[in-house]
């Protein structure tokens, strides 16, 4: 049966907020739900999605090899060790960022659409060429932010750009929420972020050291059945797949929603 993949780009504005982590975990969780998934690392020059997925040592060809015709698309697709319906197209490590154009990305995604359910693209930070490459083929955009004023401000800017590009309303994942800090009033709460960004929330992911451990092991935390953080990423995947999943209070959802609005309000003289 012919498929028509949804192309979803994960982006952020500010760097280091967890795009790559989210891409790996959402892709793995979608594949674990029985979807055929390809993820593409569009961060040319700074590839690391392969490391997070633990596939680094299998790379022979990369995205730039595909674009420049040195290999077939299939040859650059690495199958995951755990999930047989999860593939990765890695970024090139040391090449010129301009080696890939938005048109190339659209062509590659169109070639994959018929055989897969989801194409998940990991965007680089910023709004430069790599970001444009990443959003060009996207049907949907997921913005990752941290509950922190500067990250939220950059997310807002990216949402504005995405809206102007007529990509439809962006969806939001808030990553690295720290319960204790929210309770102490030292961190923006979910409600504060949502009030400003006014987009659909599809995930709240707690701050968790186990994320680093799983990254180092190259095993996405979404595949650890007992992990709450893994559950948070699995919930994001299910929401993307169209399921209605409540934000569980077990995950801290209830408390996170409290708001400390004075943090987000501009202060005098700022």
């Amino acid at each position, binding site marked *: 049966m012919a498929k028509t993949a949804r192309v979803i780009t994960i982006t952020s504005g500010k760097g280091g907020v967890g795009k790559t982590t989210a891409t790996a975990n959402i892709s793995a969780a979608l594949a674990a739900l029985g979807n055929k998934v390809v993820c593409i690392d569009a961060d040319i020059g700074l590839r690391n999605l392969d490391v997070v997925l633990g596939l680094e040592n299998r790379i022979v060809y990369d995205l730039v090899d595909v674009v420049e015709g040195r290999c077939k698309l299939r040859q650059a697709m690495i199958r995951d060790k755990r999930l047989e319906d999860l593939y990765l197209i890695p970024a090139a490590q040391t090449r010129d960022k301009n080696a890939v154009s938005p048109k190339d990305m659209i062509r590659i995604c169109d070639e994959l659409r018929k055989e897969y359910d989801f194409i998940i693209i990991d965007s680089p930070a910023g709004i430069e060429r790599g970001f444009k490459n990443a959003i060009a083929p996207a049907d949907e955009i997921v913005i990752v932010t941290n509950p922190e004023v500067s990250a939220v401000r950059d997310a807002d800017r990216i949402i*504005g750009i995405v809206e102007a590009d007529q990509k439809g309303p962006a969806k939001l994942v808030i990553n690295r929420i720290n319960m204790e800090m929210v309770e102490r009033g030292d961190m923006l709460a979910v409600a504060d972020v949502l009030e400003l960004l006014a987009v659909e929330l599809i995930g709240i992911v707690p701050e968790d050291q186990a994320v680093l451990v799983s990254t180092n092991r190259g095993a996405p935390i979404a595949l650890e059945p007992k992990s709450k953080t893994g559950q948070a990423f699995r919930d994001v995947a299910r929401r993307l797949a169209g399921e209605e999943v409540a934000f569980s209070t077990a995950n801290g959802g209830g408390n996170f929603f409290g708001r400390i609005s004075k943090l987000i309000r501009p202060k005098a003289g700022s």
Partner: protein
Amino acid sequence: MPEVAFKGIREGLLVSLGDGDWPSLEQTLYEEVGKQGTFLKGAKLILDVDAHSINAASMGRLRDQLADQGLALWAVLSRSPLTEQSAQLMGIATRIHEPDPDPEQSDDEVEYVEEPSEHLALTDVGMMIKRTLRSGANISHNGHVTIIGDVNPGAQIIAGGNVVVWGRLRGLVHAGAEGDDNAVVCAIDLSPTQLRIAGHIAVPPTEREQNGPEVAFVRDGQVVAEAWTNQNST
């Protein structure tokens, strides 16, 4: 074949386009710019597109293509409100001279026109935008500006006249930017990062409660904010 004319002016390099449909004009522009080679490199471009409507996606492409050739698209001049809006969204200027203040203009003459097909309607005196201005958005207009939506931190409005925000105002706003002390700023939630009226800068209070709709204006050389219901005192 449509033509492209280059002219050096004080603000930069003015590029005017002849007649023709937009795609072929755009193509000709790239070709002409390409022909000039390194001669134009680093130039600040002011592109006059007359009445052509250019959406935000095409505007972004235009800017990128020109940037690839070493040209900065600094301003886009157009009679099309859509084009002006796309340019402003990208932070591209839409006028190159400070417009002359109109001494005849009084609030009674304000007139807003709604064009059903566009997000934005523009007359001589007013600009209306029906969406939230997010961080990075930059609106400048010599008349009054009305926003139906929020103005988020990092967004900026500079208006020759009044600014009315039917939503939360949390960005930077400058009303009466050409020196009109009588300009006002109104918002349902008035919590700007910075508020200026003509040459006066408001210092927002440290702790603010949600006060409901407010209007800010200049009284005795200072910017003050009052509840909207208290209008008779002004």
